């Protein structure tokens, strides 16, 4: 029996096809998949980011949202101004000690499942503010768990798109954060 699921690939999936088998039959077809895979597939293609930016990376994030790069092509349809409607928070900028409890609160207010992308050197490690500062958190992962890190100061828009697609693949794999951390790199 032939399956033709290659034909329903979307741009965001890259080489990851629809998670299941499509069996064409006369007058219709049968689709075989697991429910979890379908849910992860749907989730990964509709991730709405939170409007959250604390420094210059935010300008770059806005650029990715606008027409030239346009992350809504990949399902990051529209940035939401409230954490209750957002699925992913892109930490675009420096997190200072005074901002840290606010970031934690926003993360807590987001509905599960929720994902975090640390964009740029400041969000990863404090970046240029690592040394000789009294006010900067040395990495947003001291405050909330991070799924994808993007290096750069600020990162290129392409790098953010790559990180967003990486997050989608991570969601599609169906593994938890802990499972991914302990996973051995494939040779």
């Amino acid at each position, binding site marked *: 029996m032939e399956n033709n699921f290659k034909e329903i690939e979307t741009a965001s999936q890259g080489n990851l096809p629809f998670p299941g088998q499509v069996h064409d039959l006369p007058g219709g077809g049968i689709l075989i998949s697991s429910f979890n895979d379908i849910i992860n597939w749907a989730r990964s293609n509709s991730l709405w980011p939170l409007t959250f930016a604390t420094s210059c990376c935010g300008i770059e994030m806005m650029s990715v949202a606008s027409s030239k790069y346009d992350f809504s092509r990949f399902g990051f349809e529209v940035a939401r101004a409230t954490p209750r409607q957002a699925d992913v928070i892109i930490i675009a900028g420096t997190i200072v*000690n*005074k901002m840290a409890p606010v970031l934690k609160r926003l993360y807590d207010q987001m509905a599960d499942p929720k994902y975090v992308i640390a964009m740029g050197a400041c969000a990863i490690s404090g970046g240029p503010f*690592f*040394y*000789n*500062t*009294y*006010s900067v958190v*040395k990495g947003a992962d001291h405050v909330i768990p991070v799924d994808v890190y993007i290096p750069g100061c600020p990162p290129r828009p392409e790098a953010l798109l790559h990180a967003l697609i990486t997050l989608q693949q991570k969601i599609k794999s169906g593994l938890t954060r802990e499972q991914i951390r302990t996973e051995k790199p494939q040779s």
Partner: protein
Amino acid sequence: MTNEEIKQHIIAVQPNGVFDETGEWLQVYVEGGEWKPFAQWLRNDVLQMDFLFCLTCIDWSATATGKALFTMVYHFTSTVFRHTIVVKVKLDRNNPEIETVSDCWRTAEFHEREVFDLFGVKFLHHPDLRRLVLTDDFEGYPLRKDFEDPVNMIKL
């Protein structure tokens, strides 16, 4: 007004003022005790310095020639005459106190709170001298040269 004209006006009211004309703008050093009436004169009299566009503080560490001190720096401009001057006031580093000018220039209210927060300069008769940027439980004054924070600060 040219710098020289401004200088003549200031000498008339501040005979003890020390001038520094090395920069683009005229700089004048004023004693802390004479600062408040001088500020009011700047604001309301011939010079019409109605815009305080920068208020900050400098921490000078002790050198061979002098002891450690703070310098308050005020940049004024006049939207009437389009002239600018810089006024500096030296403060005792161990007990930094100066009269507020927030009643002359409203913008000084927040700027003085910032300097109070980061340098620990006390502004006398300020209407609302609270912290501006740091957290309520912050200890020390981070922009002082001798500030140490072994918990949050990683030294290079």
